[in-house]
């Protein structure tokens, strides 16, 4: 539309720095040979990475997080897939109401969901742990997955499904042979992003995990001790790199086969 605007461009560069400096600071200090995160940097070391490797509680927490993340992402993608099909292929009665209800867990403050779940869980006499954490993550991830899948379903030609039905396929085979392959990039994107959300989620796990720590809870427990802190930086650096790669893959998948129509609605 417009040609050039240097002031705005410079502003964008500054904002970009504001966004990235806090993220990049941690990897930089993870190689710094000091307990304190202070400039100037002291010296280069791999010690914190080696220390991280030897923490057995960290391994347990990582394993817990991966377990919860995989279950939460698979289940919420499944639930979201059905819901997305309903919203895009049928004129649902009370559309606004059901749509709003499903999106609600994503919008209302997480701490309220955490409180509600801890209250019902303990009042039923059940033990806190990874099960309520997983349930809460499924609840929290489903809206994200549904938004991703809805935009993917809106993105392809419905007549392909109709053609399949006209050629005599029933609805199961139409789904399996036409809809599913077309949706697959969106489904994988949904799995990846839901996993990242669950893996990173703090407050629900903080309330509900009890002694079964997930990775963010483990990091939280170490933040207070300066001596234990550097290995969290090393862990953080790895998390930042791996999640960035996963998210970029998901972005790329989402737009795969979408032609010119690019989708920016990710996560919103």
């Amino acid at each position, binding site marked *: 539309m417009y040609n050039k605007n240097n002031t705005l461009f410079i502003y964008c560069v500054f904002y970009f720095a504001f966004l990235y400096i806090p993220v990049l600071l941690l990897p930089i200090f993870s190689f710094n040979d000091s307990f304190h995160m202070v400039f100037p940097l002291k010296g280069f070391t791999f010690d914190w990475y080696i220390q991280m490797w030897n923490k057995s509680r960290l391994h347990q927490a990582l394993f817990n997080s991966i377990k919860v993340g995989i279950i939460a992402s698979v289940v919420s993608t499944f639930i979201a897939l059905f819901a997305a099909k309903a919203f895009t292929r049928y004129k649902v009665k009370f559309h606004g109401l059901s749509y709003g209800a499903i999106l609600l867990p994503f919008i209302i403050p997480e701490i309220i969901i955490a409180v509600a779940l801890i209250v019902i869980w303990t009042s039923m006499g059940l033990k806190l742990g990874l099960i309520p954490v997983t*349930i809460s993550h499924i609840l929290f991830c489903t809206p994200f997955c549904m938004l991703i899948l809805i935009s993917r379903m809106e993105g392809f030609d419905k007549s392909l499904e109709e053609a399949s039905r006209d050629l005599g396929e029933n609805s199961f085979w139409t789904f399996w042979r036409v809809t599913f392959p077309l949706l697959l990039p969106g489904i994988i994107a949904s799995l990846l992003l839901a996993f990242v959300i669950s893996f990173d989620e703090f407050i629900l796990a903080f309330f509900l995990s009890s002694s079964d720590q997930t990775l963010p809870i483990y990091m939280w427990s170490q933040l207070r001790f300066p001596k234990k802190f550097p290995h969290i930086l090393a862990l953080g650096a790895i998390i930042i790199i791996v999640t960035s790669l996963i998210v970029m893959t998901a972005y790329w998948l989402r737009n795969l086969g979408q032609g010119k129509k690019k989708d920016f609605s990710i996560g919103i």
Partner: protein
Amino acid sequence: MNSTIQNIYFRSDQAKAYTLLSPALILVIFAMAAPMIVMIFTSFNTQISMIEIDRTFTTGRYEDFFSKPIFSMLLFRSVKISFFVTLLTLVTTYPLAYYIAFYVKKNKMLWIVLMTLPFWTSYLLRVFSWRVILGNKGVINSALMGTGMIDEPLGFLLYNQAAVIITLSHAWAAFAILPLYVSLDKIDKSLLEASYDLGNTKFETFWRVTFPLSLPGVIGAILIIFIPTVGDYVTPQLVGGTDGRMLSNMIQSLFGRANNFPLGAASAVLMLTTVCLIAALVTYITKKVSMRMS
């Protein structure tokens, strides 16, 4: 087709749709609605010992909430902080979304990806990083002292409400950039040309055409940032200090050390009520404003 057959057909379509929706609705009912109802019931109970709760109905916890000034003060502060976070985030990201929508020609997708990528990397670590930036021995202070601009570290950077507002604004930027960008990008460019042809300046065009048309994105961003940040726990805990404590920190201690589940539940109920009222107000005002504009 006569109307009865149509009716049956329609109903069976609804049946199919709701079968597909049922897993999601069951999830919301059992994992959110039911727990919330139990939470509301619990807020009318009394904690009598570490593990025992007296289930007789009482409004005592709400009386506790309103009789101890700290609670209302924390609720008010949570709302105030979220208000400033929303404002700051909108004001700082609008130019960015505007630039990407109107000036960037190639690789818009890349810009969006780069602007939203930090959002996906560990929230906890990003917040912690701000503590490192703003702290007494932090990046800003050590840089300023290293260059000799100050002798003593600036103590006012960390552990206050401003630190909470900046950190939250950084954490939620992606949630403003996306809706703003989407609504700005949708604007029909010929409307802007028409505005110039009618003799409007760039500023007038922005104020009379572009900005009103971007309002849906602005409202989306307001709701999606304001509502969740009212209940944020991590940021006030890590960078807020006593001055930046929010209601969530109090709620967490009621479920932890203070061990008063009913009072914690009552606080959560009041937080939710406040948030709903404000969200309804924002939606109502926007409807009025957009009706007047059109």
